[in-house]
């Protein structure tokens, strides 16, 4: 028998769903609203109606260089993602298609590194970066973010690869494909949806990463996260400008996420429903 929901029930649920969605979205919305206020308005207290001024955006653009941190964010996010995928595809391939007795342990160990508080390794990492001359460099940060997200990338790819029937890879082997031929001609094209959503998620994670990006950079390699943080200056907080900078920082990733949401949702629920 199909479940029946009364009209009142449906209205109730709809209102509740919208309320929760709005609650989750509210911080972002309020950031955008604040960015359209004047500084005195911004510190005046809670107010949902701004004066719609664009002066904060102009100031963020003119007083500080937005373009440089933006480019840093792009390079670091995309670079760490590509590098991560190149390393993770063979790793996930071997774990998915020729697992050993310890494969599950290796996967758990990789994930366990994500459970470690980042602050615990701040000093050693900082010293390593200093000694290798990687502080405030895009290369160093790209490498760092790749390593941070690698466990998640390997896990996600492992899950996708497990969905690919082993017989197809065996067929490729019978057809004369080498190991790389198998990965390049058969596995990768079949896993494109999975790889794409893994890349999207990784770009978002890398874009938003703030702990390491703020601590390992000063000016040259500082991405947008560090750019936002720089608005809390010794002269005091400039809420409106900070909000304008934040809006500019999250806008690209928000737009990208919006356009790829179908892919992302499909990717994140891959294999969950058959």
């Amino acid at each position, binding site marked *: 028998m199909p479940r029946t929901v009364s009209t009142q029930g449906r209205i109730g649920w709809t209102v509740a769903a919208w309320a929760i969605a709005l609650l989750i979205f509210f911080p972002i919305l309020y950031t955008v609203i604040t960015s359209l206020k004047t500084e005195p308005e911004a510190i005046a207290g809670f107010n949902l109606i701004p004066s719609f001024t664009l002066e904060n955006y102009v100031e963020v653009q003119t007083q500080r260089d937005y373009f440089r941190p933006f480019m840093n964010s792009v390079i670091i996010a995309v670079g760490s993602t590509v590098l991560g995928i190149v390393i993770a595809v063979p790793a996930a391939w071997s774990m998915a298609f020729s697992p050993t007795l310890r494969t599950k342990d290796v996967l758990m160990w990789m994930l366990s590194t994500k459970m470690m508080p980042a602050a615990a390794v701040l000093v050693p990492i900082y010293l390593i970066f200093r000694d290798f001359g990687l502080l405030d460099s895009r290369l160093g940060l790209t490498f760092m973010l790749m390593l941070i997200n690698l466990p998640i990338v390997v896990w996600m790819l492992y899950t996708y690869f497990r969905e690919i*029937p082993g*017989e*197809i890879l*065996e*067929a*490729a*082997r*019978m*057809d*004369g*494909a*080498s190991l790389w*031929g198998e990965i390049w*001609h*058969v596995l990768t*094209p*079949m896993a*494109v949806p999975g790889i794409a959503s893994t890349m999207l998620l990784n770009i978002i994670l890398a874009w938003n990463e703030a702990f390491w990006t703020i601590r390992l950079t000063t000016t040259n390699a500082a991405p947008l996260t560090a750019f936002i943080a720089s608005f809390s200056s010794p002269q005091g907080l400039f809420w409106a400008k900070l909000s304008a900078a934040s809006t500019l920082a999250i806008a690209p990733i928000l737009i990208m996420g919006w356009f790829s949401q179908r892919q992302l949702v499909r990717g994140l629920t891959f294999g969950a429903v058959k």
Partner: protein
Amino acid sequence: MGQITLKNVTKSFGATVIIPNINLEIEDGEFVVFVGPSGCGKSTLLRLIAGLEDTSGGTILIDGRDVTSEAPAKRKLAMVFQSYALYPHMTVAKNIGFPLKMAGESSDVIEKKVAEAARVLNLTNYLERRPGQLSGGQRQRVAIGRAIVRQPSAFLFDEPLSNLDAALRGTMRLEISELHNQLKTTMVYVTHDQIEAMTMADKIVVLNAGNIEQVGSPLDLYRSPQNLFVAGFIGSPRMNLMEGQLAAKHGAKTIGIRPEHLAVSTTSGEWKATVGVAEHLGSDTLLHVHSDGIGPLTVRAGGEIGVKHGDTIWVTPDVSKLHRFGPDGKALK
């Protein structure tokens, strides 16, 4: 050429022994069918020949060459999988041409050979489609096309028809037999369906628990099963097997008689029986009867017989067609 020799081949997964020790000779051009119940090791044996599994011991020779530790691609074999294992992201043409591409053939040669394979398999109009847009039978033909373009020394089939419906299975069975007649290449075919085994094979290898029970032509196996397992496995409906006094009378532990070797009469005969179910197949009738002191029997009678549930009939075995088995399950001469 396509002569395959297995010498003392063994396979275990950890402590589990799948194939204790197998010796087998497959002649060039033969159509050999591995048949046996689920889990008897027939697919594993095929995968060992293909090189998709490593042997735990023994040697595999193809045309006299030791290939035991060679990669699958080097063995010059082609395989058709149960799930077809087509590349879903490639068109039919690309699927069929893939082995040639991997072998480094020029695109002209690939195109020519793909077109030829497609012609043989009636796939010419489907070359630009993806596997997802094809029916089960067409997918199976693409899988076969992918196998034949390389001109392998032998074809391996792993239950290729089990995903098809009954009608299509019959057609594909004929097509594969036809292909064998055309190409005259060695074919090794795994199935659990003994009708496929009986109709297609030059030689049947009956496997049970990783051991070969008997090797022979279909009719050999049918007429003179060497043991109880083969007697019970080959033939549909199964051979009637009886133990006890009746068997002792014939100097055996167990005796067997095929359903068609029991004559039916409504008036007189050797064993009195009551009809349980009568399956009228048109050409003949299968009677599932129960005889006191003997037990359940299956009898194949003519299509015209008019008996029904509850009727009493008399059944007389053709003693010259009786199979006798000793206490070890082996056939007695």
